[in-house]
């Protein structure tokens, strides 16, 4: 009984079942939005909401169920590989020769010269063995390991990425030119010297550039201009150009023109002015302002051609009014004068350290080499005897038979 279960766990049937389950589960993860709040599912999916939460369809790829499936898959594929490996290794040796299959086509014809055929086979890299009434030939014995090498690659990928994720270290920072952030544990400081966009002639954005500096113990140790697809790497941490935005300066003055409040706001940020219970909401800064066909403010390019702000005021959380203003143009509210100006760009950097990547690369290499062996360098055998020429191979008997026919026809005596 236990033996039977064991055999099932490392068998092909179980592998296929796991394949299908993993596929179905993955599909669900692409259909149901991932990582939202509980209320979201309960509200949007009604009675299905509970099922979604119970079966963890809200976070498929990090769920217990998914990990269990992957773990079972690892057990299955490892077991299967270990089971097959000894017999595969035995097939690498010269004394192994498979028996021809029942359906193997006899290619023999008296017009063929089998001695000549032997020479051609030898030239093609076959190894020739004498037999009682003829000879046998074998090529690409190594190909038998293809499936095991592929499996090993997959095991390395899954385990490597899993362990890598456990130790991965990542985050996101916004920096204005001149600002810096400390990576205390690693003992260095990352400083943004400058951030700017590159434009094409038509005004569209061509690229985002952050000029970064690494400072260690007060000394600059590395400087690099990064952009999308070109990260900076330092001490195993990669820094990526991943987004950008605008910060704008808010000034609130009283009726005599004295500055009573100053703040820097990004788009979609609030500033609360306590004495008047006034909330100033910067809906957006539009460097190249326009109104789209739905009546919404948009920016055509990221160049400061026609800058405007969209601002909304609230008092005690009640909507007061909304405004479109240009830089420095005041909004009057009671006896206050509110202005936005001096917008500047900030950069958004993602950083990540993940050694799992190197395992994944090695695993991919194994997988690819394994597949090449399996599909194109599979073992080929020929058994030539008295009035028989039998092709023997497991992978691609049809194509291989064709190849041999071609070789044979070049030895034709007529």
């Amino acid at each position, binding site marked *: 009984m236990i033996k039977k279960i064991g055999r099932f766990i490392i068998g*092909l049937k179980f*592998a*296929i079942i796991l*394949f*299908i389950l*993993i*596929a179905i589960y*993955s*599909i669900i*993860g*692409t*259909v149901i939005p*991932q990582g939202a709040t509980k209320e979201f599912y309960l509200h949007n999916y009604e009675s299905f909401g509970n099922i979604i939460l119970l079966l963890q369809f809200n976070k*498929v*790829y990090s769920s217990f169920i998914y990990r269990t499936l992957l773990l079972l898959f690892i057990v299955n594929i490892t077991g299967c590989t270990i089971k097959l490996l000894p017999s595969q290794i035995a097939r690498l040796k010269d004394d192994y020769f498979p028996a021809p299959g029942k359906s193997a086509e006899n290619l023999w014809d008296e017009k063929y010269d089998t001695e000549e055929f032997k020479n051609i086979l030898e030239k093609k890299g076959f190894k020739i063995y004498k037999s009682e009434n003829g000879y046998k030939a074998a090529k690409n014995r190594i190909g038998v390991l293809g499936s095991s090498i592929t499996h090993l690659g997959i095991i390395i990928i899954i385990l490597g*990425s899993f362990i890598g994720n456990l130790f991965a270290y*990542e985050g996101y920072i916004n920096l204005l030119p001149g600002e810096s952030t400390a990576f205390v544990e690693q003992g260095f400081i990352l400083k943004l010297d400058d951030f700017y966009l590159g434009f*094409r002639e038509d005004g*569209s*954005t*061509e*690229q*985002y550039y952050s000029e970064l500096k690494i400072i260690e113990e007060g000394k600059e140790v590395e400087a690099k201009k990064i*952009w*999308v*697809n*070109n*990260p900076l790497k330092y001490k195993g941490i*990669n820094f*990526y150009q*991943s987004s950008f935005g605008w910060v704008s300066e808010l000034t609130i003055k009283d009726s005599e023109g004295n500055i009573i409040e100053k703040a820097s706001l990004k788009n979609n940020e609030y500033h609360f002015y306590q004495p008047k219970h006034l909330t100033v909401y910067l809906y957006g800064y539009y460097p190249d302002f326009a109104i789209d066909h739905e009546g919404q403010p948009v920016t055509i390019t990221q160049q400061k051609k026609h800058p405007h702000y969209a601002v909304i005021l609230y008092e005690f959380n009640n909507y007061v009014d909304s405004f479109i203003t240009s830089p420095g143009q005041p909004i009057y509210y009671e006896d206050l004068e509110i202005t936005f100006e001096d917008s500047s760009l900030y950069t958004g950097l*993602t*950083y*990540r350290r*993940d050694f799992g*990547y190197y395992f*994944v*690369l090695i695993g*991919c290499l194994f*997988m*690819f080499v394994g*597949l*090449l062996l399996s*599909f194109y360098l599979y073992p080929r055998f020929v058994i030539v005897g008295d009035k028989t020429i039998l092709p023997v191979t*497991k*992978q*691609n008997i*049809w*194509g291989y038979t064709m190849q041999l026919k071609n070789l044979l026809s070049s030895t034709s005596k007529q």
Partner: protein
Amino acid sequence: MSLVYFEELFFTLAFIIYIIASIGFFVFLVSSKEKVGKFSVTASTIGFVIHTIAMILRIIESGRLPFSNQFEFANSFTWAIVLCYLVIHYIYKFTAVGGFVMPLAFLMMGYASMLPKTIKPLMPALQSRWLTIHVGTAIISYGSFAVATGLSLMYLINERHKVKDKKISHLPDAEVCDYLSYRVTAFGYLMLTLVIVTGAIWAKKAWSRYWGWDPKETWSLITWIIYSTYLHLRFNRGWKGKTAAWFSIIGFLCVIFTFIGVNVLLPGLHSYR
């Protein structure tokens, strides 16, 4: 007259020729007139040459490979489908294969023709030499899968007629379709593996992580799993014939969903429309 004019002209010409070839193949299949078959193959070849010229014009005009929006992808896929078909045709000389592959090509081109064709410069995320390798392997992989599906369809039709005991003389043996479909699938699978691997390497450079369950990533994994299942059952359980043919068709539907469905229904980082 400008390059754009000729480019569009050649695209339209290629499209029309592909339709004519498809119709020709259909006539060939029902009438089995050798001449019609030959004509259709020639038409496909000429269409392909014209299509290639159109692509080259677009490359000259934009100064980069045609890999930057859904129109260009669909167009490149069409091109690769016809390329793979012609390669298989000129090796094995099975005229009938075209009857099942060329319609796929013209459908894909029809889809392309409905999309906006404007040439836009590459967005920052796509400015990388990985674009060429990643999308290049993708179109070859999908082209092979399309041909494999055509072969599987042919197998199924062949089988049906065999049962009725009137084998269609101009279709290659069912057995041969079955094997060839398998070999072509294996090649497409190897390429798909490369697409995913190069995608992961690129994603590491562009998006900081090599795998992030973006819908396109997930669906390419699902496609890969389906073809893995096919290859395992075929190799270890001797699955052949009908079941294998249906499996190959399901695999291709999955490919199409990954390509079109994901962009339309499940947009993520990967949808460049």
